[in-house]
């Protein structure tokens, strides 16, 4: 088991290195790197000073090493707009995005899986057909449009919740989160729902497909032949089988939730990494873009690793393979 984890970790490390190479050389190929790292309104003297300071007159591989050194020390350049370290900026905005992504994931699991289970067990009922139709709508509707509609309906017309912004922060065990105050909850509700919509649809469809496939399997028929109650067949036999792919996919989707939050954060003016990214792109604040990319890559690799490990714990066929059957 430990061998397995170590192997996966090494692979993950490899991927991060690979991505850093891609990002670095990509950035350098696309445009003159000096403009990546220097404010657009610097004059010639500043530019030359920056070239010397940043070592851009050195051979490319030396620059890459410098880049890595800087990255290891947490220095990925300074933001043009804010003047401070790009990395620090992103880390500062991360908790807000984490909150949002986390809430959305919870919503997706709590709403999506039970609905999918129902739709899978009674595929021909009217309610199931309604659930499936709703799920198609869920992933067809562009997130930004749904966000707009949500704001229109709940914030403007009904005035149940505020339209934009993040609420007050509460504190628990040293962690600050807006999920811990009622004001915070009222602010996070719409954006979390908006972000979750796609994932809810995904969870519904995944669970339903898994249930339908499982129900047709021989082991379900055999379980019935043993006289087991329907409840046990579904909750133990079926669920354990479909949980594996469902958990895997949902876990991986968490990463995409973080990336996807860009749109939601823009609409709801949620002060997270995503909004930071969009502003950075529009304002040509390149160090921030690069820093965001690296952080995201790191994140994805980490999530993949964790999900791989969880998967191996859940599926005995994978876990016991290393030990030899």
């Amino acid at each position: 088991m430990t061998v397995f984890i170590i192997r996966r970790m090494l692979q993950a490390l490899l991927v991060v290195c690979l991505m850093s190479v891609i990002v670095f050389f990509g950035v350098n190929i696309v445009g003159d790197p000096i403009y990546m790292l220097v404010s657009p309104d610097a004059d010639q003297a500043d530019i030359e000073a920056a070239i010397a300071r940043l070592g851009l007159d050195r051979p490319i591989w030396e620059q890459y090493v410098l880049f890595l050194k800087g990255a290891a020390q947490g220095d990925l350049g300074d933001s043009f707009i804010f003047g401070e370290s790009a990395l620090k900026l992103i880390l500062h905005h991360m908790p807000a995005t984490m909150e949002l992504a986390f809430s959305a994931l919870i919503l997706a699991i709590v709403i999506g899986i039970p609905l999918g289970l129902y739709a899978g067990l009674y595929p021909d009922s009217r309610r199931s057909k309604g659930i499936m139709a709703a799920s198609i709508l869920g992933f067809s509707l562009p997130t930004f449009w749904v966000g707009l509609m949500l704001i229109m309906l709940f914030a403007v017309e009904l005035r149940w919740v505020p339209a934009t912004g993040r609420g007050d922060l509460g504190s628990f065990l040293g962690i600050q989160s807006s999920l811990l105050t009622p004001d915070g909850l009222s602010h996070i509700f719409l954006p979390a729902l908006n972000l979750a919509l796609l994932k809810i649809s995904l969870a519904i469809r995944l669970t339903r497909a898994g249930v339908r496939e499982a129900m047709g399997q021989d082991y379900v028929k055999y379980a019935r032949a043993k006289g087991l109650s329907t409840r046990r067949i579904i909750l133990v036999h079926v669920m354990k089988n479909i949980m594996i792919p469902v958990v895997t996919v949902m876990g991986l989707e968490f990463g995409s939730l973080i990336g996807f939050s860009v749109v939601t954060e823009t609409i709801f003016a949620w002060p997270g990494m995503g909004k930071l990214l969009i502003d950075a792109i529009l304002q040509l604040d390149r160090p921030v873009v690069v820093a965001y990319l690296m952080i995201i890559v790191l994140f994805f690799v980490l999530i993949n690793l964790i999900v791989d490990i969880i998967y191996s714990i859940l599926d005995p066929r994978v876990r016991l393979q290393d030990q030899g059957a």
Partner: protein
Amino acid sequence: MTDATTDSAMTAAPLAKVETPFQRFRAEFFESKIATVALGIFLIIVLLAILAPWITPQNPYDLAQVTIMDGRLPPGSEAFDGYTMWLGSDGAGRDLYSAILYGLRISLTVGLASGVIALLFGMAVGLIAAYAGGRIEVLIMRIVDLQLSFPASLVALMMVAALGKGVDKIILALVIAQWAYYARTVRATALVERGKEYVEAAQCLGISQSRIVFRHILPNCMAPLIVVGTVQTASAISLEATLSFLGVGLPQTEPSIGVLIANGFEYMLSGRYWISVFPGAALLLTVVSINLVGDHLRDVLNPRLKK
């Protein structure tokens, strides 16, 4: 003792009526009223988009026809030139009905073009991976998996940030965001097919590799490709709209649906809902109908769910 029966019973049992796979597919597809309606709606939308120059009172890209005095008029108002703006007008004075139809043209073109290019490219890569096997296959699939673990919107965003604005760059970004889905689907199917006995048999007969690929393996990949294709096209259209909405997509001068919606965003809170809602509804109809069709196609073409 026995009843007399005709001589025909002396011969073998009569053959059951056989229908071609395509007929069966067609019959099964149209069993779903929802999917049929969705298909109809989508075809109508495409038709409207193609005929746009002939059925709209205004060409919203021709600045000579657009005047700010027509701006922000509610649905049903009369324009400066005398025609009725059934869906109202946007901030710059464009008749929304015209703008939506022209916008659909762009959105559909971009979506379909990027979809087709991504399909061809992804299909080529997938086939190569399945056939080359060994290290090449592992390398390609690692790249595919890597890319697929990132959400398409993020990839597209990154590409756009790197490449800049412009229709061709948007299409390129969308292609890069999508090709991996096609590659993975094609490779998986190609692998399954390659392992099947008829390929071995064909190889034994000395049929050339390319012939095997094109005449035998490819047609079998069609089914999952079609399903992935429809869903991906809808996703591409949606993605372009999202990018445009965020301001990094198509330029303002030839607005796609996404740009229209973005433009209307600021008017939402002041009650001029139509500027965003109508283009939004058009986008919705398009994407949802494609997805409904694709969803049903998946059910119909999925052999495992057959009774």
